């Protein structure tokens, strides 16, 4: 089924927004419930069955609050930052293929677009912290920038490794190449790169660092920097940052699913494709939540050392190895 152009546009705009909105709200619920399970308590239970209406109640509360701009702050940037942090996540999702037939836009350079928009997110958080004129926020901003610069390099190196195998930047084609059983998924293509699982782990670690998730949550390290770049934000300003964090996790995990786990491809042949996509996506998201509630935070300089001294050399090794293997076999 192919819709005519104006309907298609409206449908996908609405669909993407709803998907992000629902996920951002309910990933908070998943995170709280998950954390509660890890910590042997029950989490939200009061609002709705099993606390299912809690995200909506939270959103209403945040919406009812006044958006305060500190008198010293840069008003324009301060208000612009939450929008800037949310918009790229939405843009990225419009290029992702969810199943054979579901996907807003097929771009030949889809992968480049995702990474291009991904880096705007960093700038937006930095601007938010900078515009707040708060010392904690500025320290946090400086951290975010150096952290993301450090982690984008190994991430892109792993992606280049993949690109050499796939030969295309079109996300749909990347998934189509992985059809026919899980041994065709990129993570199992050991003939092209025997270190493929390592490449995935590097990608996953970089994704955690890019989305500022524990154990790399330097930006919002509450026991050090209060709330980091978001210290001065209240009401929905904070709410949008909070949602954007989950939207970015969604993008990151979707990308990992597409690049490494065959996107909508079913490993055993049962169930329709989009369900498999969601299954893989949420399994990855659960891992992200799991990691956060299990590990303590690292120090900032160790984080940078990990990137420059371990991850970048390792990803270069996989890159060289892949090119050699592709040439030889």
């Amino acid at each position, binding site marked *: 089924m192919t819709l005519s152009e104006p309907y298609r546009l409206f449908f996908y705009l609405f669909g993407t927004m709803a998907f992000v909105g629902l996920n951002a709200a309910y990933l908070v619920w998943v995170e709280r419930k998950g954390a509660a399970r890890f910590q042997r308590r029950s989490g939200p239970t009061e609002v709705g069955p099993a606390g299912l209406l809690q995200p909506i109640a939270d959103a209403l509360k945040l919406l009812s609050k006044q958006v305060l701009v500190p008198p010293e702050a840069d008003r324009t940037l301060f208000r612009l930052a939450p929008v800037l942090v949310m918009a790229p996540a939405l843009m990225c999702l419009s290029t992702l293929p969810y199943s054979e037939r579901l996907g807003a836009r097929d771009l030949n350079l889809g992968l480049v677009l995702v990474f291009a928009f991904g880096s705007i997110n960093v700038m937006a958080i930095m601007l938010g912290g900078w515009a707040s004129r708060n010392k904690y926020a500025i320290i946090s901003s400086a951290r975010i920038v150096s952290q993301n610069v450090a982690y984008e390099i190994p991430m892109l190196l792993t992606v280049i490794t993949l690109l050499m195998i796939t030969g295309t930047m079109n996300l749909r084609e990347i998934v189509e190449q992985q059809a026919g059983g899980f041994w065709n998924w990129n993570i199992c293509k050991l003939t092209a790169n025997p270190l493929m699982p390592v490449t995935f782990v590097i990608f996953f670690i970089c994704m955690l660092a890019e989305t500022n998730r524990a154990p790399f949550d330097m930006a919002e390290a509450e026991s*050090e920097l209060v709330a980091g770049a978001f210290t001065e934000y209240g009401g929905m300003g904070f709410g949008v940052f909070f949602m954007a964090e989950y939207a970015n996790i969604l993008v990151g995990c979707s990308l990992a699913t597409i690049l490494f786990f065959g996107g909508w491809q079913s490993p055993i042949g049962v169930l329709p494709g989009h369900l498999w996509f969601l299954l893989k996506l949420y399994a990855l998201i659960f891992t992200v939540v799991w990691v956060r509630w299990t590990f303590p935070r690292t*120090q*900032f300089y160790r984080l940078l050392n990990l990137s420059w001294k371990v991850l970048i050399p390792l990803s270069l090794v996989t890159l060289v190895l892949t090119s050699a293997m592709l040439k030889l076999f």
Partner: protein
Amino acid sequence: MQLETIKAPGSPTEGQETFVLNLGPQHPATHGVLRVKLTMDGEYITRAEPVCGYIHRMHEKMGENRTYAQFLPNTSRIDYLSAMHYTHAFVGVVERAVGIEVPPRAEYVRVITSELNRIASHLVWFGAFLLDLGGFTPLLYAFDDREKILDLLEGITGARLTYCYYRFGGLYNDVDEAFLTGTREFVTYMRPRLDMYRELVTGNVILRKRLEGIGPISAKTCRKYGATGPVIRGSGVAHDVRKVMPYSVYSDLDFDIPVFPECDCMARYLVRMEEMAQSLRLIEQALARLPAGPFVAAKVPRVIKLPPGDYYYAVEAARGRFAVRVVSDGKEIPYRVKLRTPSFANLTLFEEASRGMMLPDALALLGSLDLVIPDIDR
């Protein structure tokens, strides 16, 4: 005449660009209303200046205008996490001065409850410290264990936090069978839990990297500032009031003083974790030896008057040496009550120890000192 300006140690040198960062009085890492004025050079601390007094309650002055019995409940509110030890010190100073013979049953129960209180206090520290390091989950596990201790102590003292269980000459009431069996069960429950923490938390590579070699405090610095408790024992000095100035029946019981010579945050962490195991040992022994008999001395004067003089009694509280010095002029009301609290001494070394450290490491150091803010200001 040219006046020479005297600079405080660690103040910025010529051409160094610094800014002042206010850590507290409201900050998630200070666990109370402690304020530390940090002079920062980027993320490095050049000078940390603790500002005390935000929760000053004049406990010492209060001691000067009420009777000994009236002041006793105050002592449990100085360090709300180790109330047993604090009341023990005040009860001890009066008993020593008046010459009250405490029956052995009361002494053994004091040891049991004190050690339970020590474990509870260390569990709070364990959770809060890991929270400072960004690990949320251990806090809930620690509080789960602590809940069991609080339930036990609530049964015999009626309070969950600010106990006033020790009285001059003995105890408020006798322990019942429920407490004794409950404590026995707790000891068998807690040992595997400690093993679990050792495996899950102490062995975690991120935690080890965050604590090992971070925040070294030499034994010399500890002595200079009068640091006691796990802080000095983490610097290789086996100073524990229970061993060096034994009180109660500690000299009859068999236990070790955990000492780690590495001086870093990990050493202080390990000291406290090991102390919990030692406390369990003490409780087990005290339970086995618990004699029958009265729980309060037969002859306790109705109105307590200390003969004129100067009296001192120190106990090993969860955070270090807590001592009460009472100067009496023979009246019903003490002339002066001096409270020597461990957290205050432990905080004073923070300025020197944190110089040149990065902010997250300095906060790990602050957490490893295990400060209770009302204990600093009293």
